[in-house]
């Protein structure tokens, strides 16, 4: 019993199989006074017994059921054979392989706590005669300990393998995420937003937003399935597209070449639905091919409606393209939004089996279209999470939004005469309303515009050109620009300040207007273009500036 307890303690320590089996075998030999010992592991998948460790013998596999080991495994009983060569079940091939002669043999099943066979332990050639009943009892106790230790080692190995797999997936996710844009590209007159939320560690979706030669590349792709294989496919497509466009390929060539390359490499039952578009921010024309990716929506700000565009081709990689329909062209107008959302959103089901659907996406876009696309992305994710509640995310969620910013400015020209002042005031009031500028800035802007305009009338008498006025909505306020042509330069930022504390007899009205502008405006800039003899004055007013305006 003392020996068993020592063995038990010894078995608690090792975590790898060979050390553990070595411990068992040496313990058995010692406790039972035997010459040799071996442990056969049961390979359930192959239904074979594998001799992993035996002192002096190389690994051997035998079909479960062969020989005494097989009989023990099948019947799960202890078998005590005093003279092997007298027992018909004995298979001498192991002796032949090892050159060792087995005389007496004690064979025990190793059964774990779930009553499954994990292996067979054999102890060979007791030095003092055959194994007796006391040896059987000792060996049975040892076998029970061995089975538990063996099970623990196997579970540990499975955990380690699982952890290796998890780490490999984590790496794959890092690689996939590194291909996505880290920041949204800055495109004049456009606001873009995107997100990618994989259902598993890696996903079968991808997107891209990148400026390539003055054009915005817009991609949303969705490979069949999710997990590591489709993640590799979409990442490959993503990289090929970037490369193709960087090398100057046109949309058709890139689409066909990437499709054909994917058709060659993807498994026969795999494909990628993808929207691939190029937007020219100068002409506001979006040209795209969609390989089975839909729905493609464009929100029209003017009519507050959605246009739906069909795919131009089958999914990428499904087969080679022999004839490609022309790309779809869409003219984006101020305030319009391209809406690309993967089916992981549309088909996301809540607990009662209802899908998120297209209507909820459209309602959200229509509701928050005036806000930033980053807010739209966050709003969509929030709506989806709220809708899904406890329902698990089954598919990757990807969204790309591209908005042409609404016109933020109004420009008009005015006759160079004091009588135009009411027209200036009326124009400003209209621009404030149309551009949604804080109306409390109105009186301040009127004052600034009038002061600058009257200066231009007074001092630009030699010019017959009208005076240009532009009002532009900016964050929290308005930018006012006056353009005065055919005039000499006059930098208002350099004009001397007025001494407002002077006694009344020293006070004159002159210079007071510019003084007030400097007091009221957050910033004043002056530029003069010599070739056009043009003065341009820009003022910024925001609620946070020094203006107090009207209440």
């Amino acid at each position, binding site marked *: 019993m003392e020996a068993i307890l020592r063995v038990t303690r010894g078995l608690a320590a090792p975590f790898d199989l060979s050390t553990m089996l070595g411990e068992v075998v040496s313990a058995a030999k010692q406790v039972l006074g035997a010459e040799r010992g071996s442990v056969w592991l049961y390979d359930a998948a192959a239904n074979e017994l594998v001799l992993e460790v035996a002192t002096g013998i190389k690994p051997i596999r035998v079909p479960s059921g062969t020989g005494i080991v097989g009989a023990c495994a099948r019947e799960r009983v202890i078998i005590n054979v005093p003279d092997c060569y007298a027992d018909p079940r004995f298979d001498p091939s192991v002796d032949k392989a090892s050159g060792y002669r087995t005389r007496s043999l004690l064979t025990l099943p190793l059964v774990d706590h779930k009553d499954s066979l994990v292996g067979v332990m054999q102890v060979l050639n007791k030095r003092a005669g055959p194994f007796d009943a006391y040896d059987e009892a000792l060996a049975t106790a040892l076998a029970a300990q061995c089975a538990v230790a063996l099970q623990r080692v196997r579970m540990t190995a499975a955990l380690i393998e699982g952890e290796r797999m998890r780490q490999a997936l984590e790496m794959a996710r890092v690689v996939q995420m590194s291909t996505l844009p880290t920041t949204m590209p800055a495109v004049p007159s456009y606001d873009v937003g995107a997100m990618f939320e994989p259902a598993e560690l890696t996903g079968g979706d991808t997107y891209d937003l990148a400026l390539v030669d003055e054009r915005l590349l817009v991609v949303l792709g969705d490979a069949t399935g999710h997990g590591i294989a489709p993640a590799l496919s979409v990442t490959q497509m993503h990289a090929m597209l970037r490369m193709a466009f960087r090398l100057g390929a046109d949309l058709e060539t890139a689409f066909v070449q990437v499709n054909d390359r994917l058709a060659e490499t993807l498994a026969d039952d795999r494909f990628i639905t993808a929207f691939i578009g190029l937007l020219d921010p100068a002409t506001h024309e979006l040209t795209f091919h969609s390989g089975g990716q839909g729905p493609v929506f464009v929100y029209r700000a003017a009519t507050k409606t959605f246009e739906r565009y069909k795919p131009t081709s089958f999914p990428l990689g499904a087969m080679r393209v022999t004839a490609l329909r022309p790309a779809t062209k869409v003219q984006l107008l101020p305030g319009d939004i391209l809406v690309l959302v993967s089916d992981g959103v549309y088909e996301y089901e809540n607990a009662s089996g209802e899908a998120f659907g297209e209507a909820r996406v459209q309602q959200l876009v229509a509701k928050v279209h005036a806000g930033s696309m980053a807010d739209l992305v966050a709003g969509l994710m929030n709506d989806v999470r709220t809708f899904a509640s406890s329902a698990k995310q089954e598919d990757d969620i990807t969204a790309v939004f591209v908005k042409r910013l609404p016109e933020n400015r109004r420009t008009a020209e005015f006759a160079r005469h004091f009588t135009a002042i009411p027209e200036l005031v009326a124009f400003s009031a209209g621009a404030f309303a149309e551009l949604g500028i804080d109306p409390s800035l109105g009186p301040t802007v009127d004052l600034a515009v009038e002061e600058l305009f009257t200066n231009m009338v007074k001092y630009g008498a030699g010019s017959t050109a009208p005076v240009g006025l532009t009002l532009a909505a900016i964050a929290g306020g308005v930018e006012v620009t006056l353009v005065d042509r055919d005039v000499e330069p006059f930098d208002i930022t350099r004009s001397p300040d007025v001494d407002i504390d002077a006694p009344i007899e020293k006070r004159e009205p002159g210079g*007071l207007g510019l003084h007030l502008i400097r007091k009221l405006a957050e910033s004043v800039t002056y530029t003069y273009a010599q070739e056009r003899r043009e003065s341009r004055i820009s003022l910024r007013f925001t609620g946070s500036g020094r203006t107090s305006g009207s209440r």
Partner: protein
Amino acid sequence: MLAIEYRQDGAVVLAGRLDASQAEAAQAFLDKVQGTVTLDCNGLEYISSAGLGVLLKTQKRLLAAAGKLRLVGLKPHLRDIFTYSGFDQLFEIESAS
């Protein structure tokens, strides 16, 4: 547009916008006032430096003859303009209650 007229008690009522396009008309009216004159600004919505110039010229003329302008009912955003320009030091101002 600007409206400028006498009230029955002799005060001058200013209403609307006193901008550069209205300054000439306002000046012509105020050139005729004498003594200590109350300007009722309750209806005044806007004033620019051109308007301030009209008031300054009038104030100088009246002060020389021991008279003055008294401004009453000035709206807060116009009061700010007077402060920024230092004109609050040149006129007796009684703000809108």
